[in-house]
């Protein structure tokens, strides 16, 4: 969930009133936001770098507000204020207007064929006669960063560039060139570099190095030029220094390039709808003509308004309320979805503004009506759905066995399903290839290399962590292990295992054997080879030679028991003998 940090006093000024922290928290809660933290720049520096570094830092109070991941229109102070003011019916939702300049007077962005292989899409718009202040400018930069981190997927899908239009002259060309052929002065640098040198320059940059991989191995890098060959940007890495905007910039050229055209359009719409508020003619945006390699043209930003019709009874029925059609229309209007009743009250017509790309289905409209109504005002009712409960047979058996194993004097352990390859193979004297283990591709540490194929390592590690406890230690676990199985739809399968260990000064094989007999007694399996259970001498790499038996029941091998091999005991950092038992309990369901 993205977090937006805003200055409290600035927020209250824009909202036209002040709130106590608690009042504002309640307002957020009602609207689906979360006042996550109340802090200040000074507090943040103290927390991260210590008291010393924080000297002189600002102690203006900041609100950190968690915003739902699909509400890009609430990612800056401007959007938050607009959303809350409309919600509280203090202002009407503004109408965003696209101004198309007269023929030949507008800006054009020409996309060349070379971009296809690396970053095929581009959209653009102009904010004309804008008035920034320090705060507005900071918010403008911050919104771009928030969008980059969220909907733009760290610039992989979309990258935003904003430029001082008065420093350049169109038409602009979006093309792709070999890195050696691109040369310009990157933002806030003092000299020119080639694209290859820029990549080296930012390899250690704490921020930009995360984006290098997006184009690094491509033969051509994307680049935008003006008509005089001035570089606007090399997306998705860096803008040129030449077109840098500042607080005094009056005309802003905004380009969004990317690999996903839908998201590029949304991002552009969000930026211009949020900041056109500060244009000479508020909420108006100058359009840019984009020319595709095939000669076709398109006007951006889209700023599309879409109309949906939803029946009032559907909204009432889905929420469990009974509001009049006009009251529902009013609720929706408070969520920036301008609505009115049509067709003698049979229908509500809802206008979805360009800021609300998250509204893709009637269910999204229903939710907004419910939020405006107030979730906590909805009458709670119990569904009449009549059903008979059933347990899953395997879990029912597990529950029953657990109780009787504890009654037999064994204590239940709860260990991880993920572990190191070493735990399930090397430490048990086996080769990993013999385990059929499922292997994880991206583990952060060795503890998550594989899914366990046996419960034994987890129990032995539990004992190792509890060596100070009085002996004997008698532990069990009933849980799932995972093995590869090409006959299932995902290629792997769980099995429910039961494992028990006895750790003491003497191996206690008879105790583990006795536990097996007790479990079979509980399962009503008699001790005989024909239709019951039997154990037969075998060898196992984890067991001491001559002290291992295979367990047969229901006509199949279900597991092993025996005295653990001293090497196994040592590798699990244990010092005493130990006997163990592990079986698959699924045949007994």
């Amino acid at each position, binding site marked *: 969930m993205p977090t937006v940090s805003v200055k409290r006093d600035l927020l209250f000024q824009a909202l036209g009133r002040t709130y106590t922290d608690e009042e504002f928290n309640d307002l957020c809660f009602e609207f689906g936001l979360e006042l996550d933290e109340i802090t200040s720049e000074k507090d943040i520096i103290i927390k991260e770098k210590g008291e010393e570094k924080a000297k002189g830092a600002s102690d203006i109070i900041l609100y950190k507000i968690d915003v739902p991941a699909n509400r890009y229109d609430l990612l800056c102070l401007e959007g938050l204020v607009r959303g809350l003011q409309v919600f509280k019916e203090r202002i009407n939702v503004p109408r965003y207007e696209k101004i198309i300049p007269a023929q030949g007077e507008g800006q054009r962005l020409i996309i060349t064929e070379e971009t296809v292989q690396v970053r095929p899409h581009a959209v653009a718009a102009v904010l004309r006669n804008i008035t920034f202040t320090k705060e507005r400018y900071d918010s403008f930069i911050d919104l771009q960063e928030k969008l980059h981190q969220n909907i733009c997927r760290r610039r992989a899908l979309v990258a935003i560039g904003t430029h001082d239009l008065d420093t350049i002259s169109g038409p602009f060309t979006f093309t792709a060139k070999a890195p050696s052929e691109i040369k310009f002065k990157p933002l806030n640098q003092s000299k020119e570099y080639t694209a290859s040198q820029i990549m080296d320059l930012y390899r250690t940059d704490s921020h930009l190095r995360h984006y290098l991989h997006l184009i690094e191995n491509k033969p051509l890098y994307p680049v935008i030029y003006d008509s005089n060959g001035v570089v606007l940007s090399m997306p998705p890495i860096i803008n040129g220094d030449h077109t840098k905007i500042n607080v005094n910039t009056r005309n802003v050229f905004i380009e969004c390039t990317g690999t996903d055209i839908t998201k590029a359009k949304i991002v552009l719409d969000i930026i211009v709808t949020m900041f056109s508020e500060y244009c000479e003619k508020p909420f108006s945006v100058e359009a840019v003509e984009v020319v595709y390699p095939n000669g076709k043209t398109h006007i951006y930003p889209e700023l599309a308004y879409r109309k949906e019709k939803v029946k009032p009874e559907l909204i009432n029925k889905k929420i469990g309320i009974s509001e009049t059609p006009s009251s529902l229309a009013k609720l929706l209007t408070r969520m920036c979805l301008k609505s009115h009743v049509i067709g003698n009250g049979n229908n509500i017509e809802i206008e979805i503004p360009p800021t609300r790309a998250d509204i893709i289905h009637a269910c999204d409209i229903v939710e907004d009506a419910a939020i405006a109504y107030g979730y906590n005002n909805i009458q709670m009712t119990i569904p009449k759905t009549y059903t008979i409960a059933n347990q899953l047979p395997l879990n029912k058996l597990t529950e029953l066995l657990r109780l009787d194993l504890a009654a037999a004097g064994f204590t239940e352990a709860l260990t991880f*399903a993920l572990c190191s390859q070493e735990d399930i193979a090397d430490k048990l004297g086996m080769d990993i290839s013999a385990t059929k283990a499922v292997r994880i591709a991206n583990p952060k540490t060795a503890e998550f290399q594989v899914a366990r194929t046996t419960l034994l390592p987890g129990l032995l590690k539990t004992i190792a962590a509890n060596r100070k406890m009085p002996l004997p230690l008698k532990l069990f676990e009933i849980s799932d292990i995972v093995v590869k199985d090409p006959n299932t739809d995902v290629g792997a399968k769980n099995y429910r295992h039961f494992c028990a260990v006895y750790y003491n000064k003497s191996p206690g094989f008879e105790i583990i054997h006795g536990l097996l007999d007790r479990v079979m007694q509980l399962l009503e399996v008699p001790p005989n080879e024909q239709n019951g259970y039997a154990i037969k001498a075998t060898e196992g790499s984890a067991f001491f030679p001559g002290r291992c038996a295979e367990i047969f029941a229901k006509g199949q091998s279900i597991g092993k028991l025996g005295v653990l091999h001293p090497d196994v005991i040592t590798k699990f950092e244990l010092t005493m003998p130990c006997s163990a038992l592990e079986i698959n309990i699924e045949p007994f369901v």
Partner: protein
Amino acid sequence: MIATGSWRQRPFKPYNFSALGLPPACGHLHPLLKVRSQLRQIFLEMGFTEMPTDNFVESSFWNFDALFQPQQHPARDQHDTFFLQDPAEAPELPPGYTAKVKKVHAQGGYGSQGYKYEWRLEEARRNLLRTHTTSASARALYRLAHQEKFTPVKYFSIDRVFRNESLDATHLAEFHQVEGVVADRGLTLGHLMGTLRQFFTKLGITQLRFKPAYNPYTEPSMEVFSYHKGLKKWVEVGNSGVFRPELLLPMGLPENVSVIAWGLSLERPTMIKYGINNIRELVGHRVNLQMVYDSPLCRLDA
């Protein structure tokens, strides 16, 4: 002594009644799994049937795509999810249904605009360790949709899920998810809230408040908050919502069927119940067995 009656003449040393007795030799159940038993019991009391959840390995298809979670969603990032190297891909996805899921993502349908992006089969086939048991709920709903005739159901599950997260006092790479699902004709948001109130009351949590939230697969969505008397603030205790039509209709469920669902972790209420602050003291091989030996009965409503 009893037989001869000699005890009548013998003097006896007085007992020290202020000392503790000898602890009985016994086995113990793990506190987290005691809470699991109680939660199963609560669901059974409420008429919920247990879903199968016996596959930790899941395809991206069932874990994300079937739940209408777009392929560029951050949760599908390497940073959040354990993907598998072997078996890297699911051999089989349900053919007709997969085509419908592809269409609703890429182009929309069923009254939806869709996400309008290029949906890739290879991405859907990528295997992972399930990040939520909602993948198992999706499979259960798909089976329900393929019954000859729709019948209302109440389902639950409690099982392990996996996240490739940074570990700290409240986060482990694996935890247990508790999930409840009700599918019936004409269910409302009010029904969801009513069901949650019933459920949490049985858990001993009575003061509830609902906050609008965003989940990719539910709309409306609501987070459940309860007032924590110790912390003197509202804390999140669960997440819930109404499954999106883009999820239900491609499965083939009838159009007037609504599905309400909620989920919470098993660890969090257990930590609150047993006063444990660090999750590593509750789950895994490093737990102190003395804690297991000493843990009281799990009486949630007490």
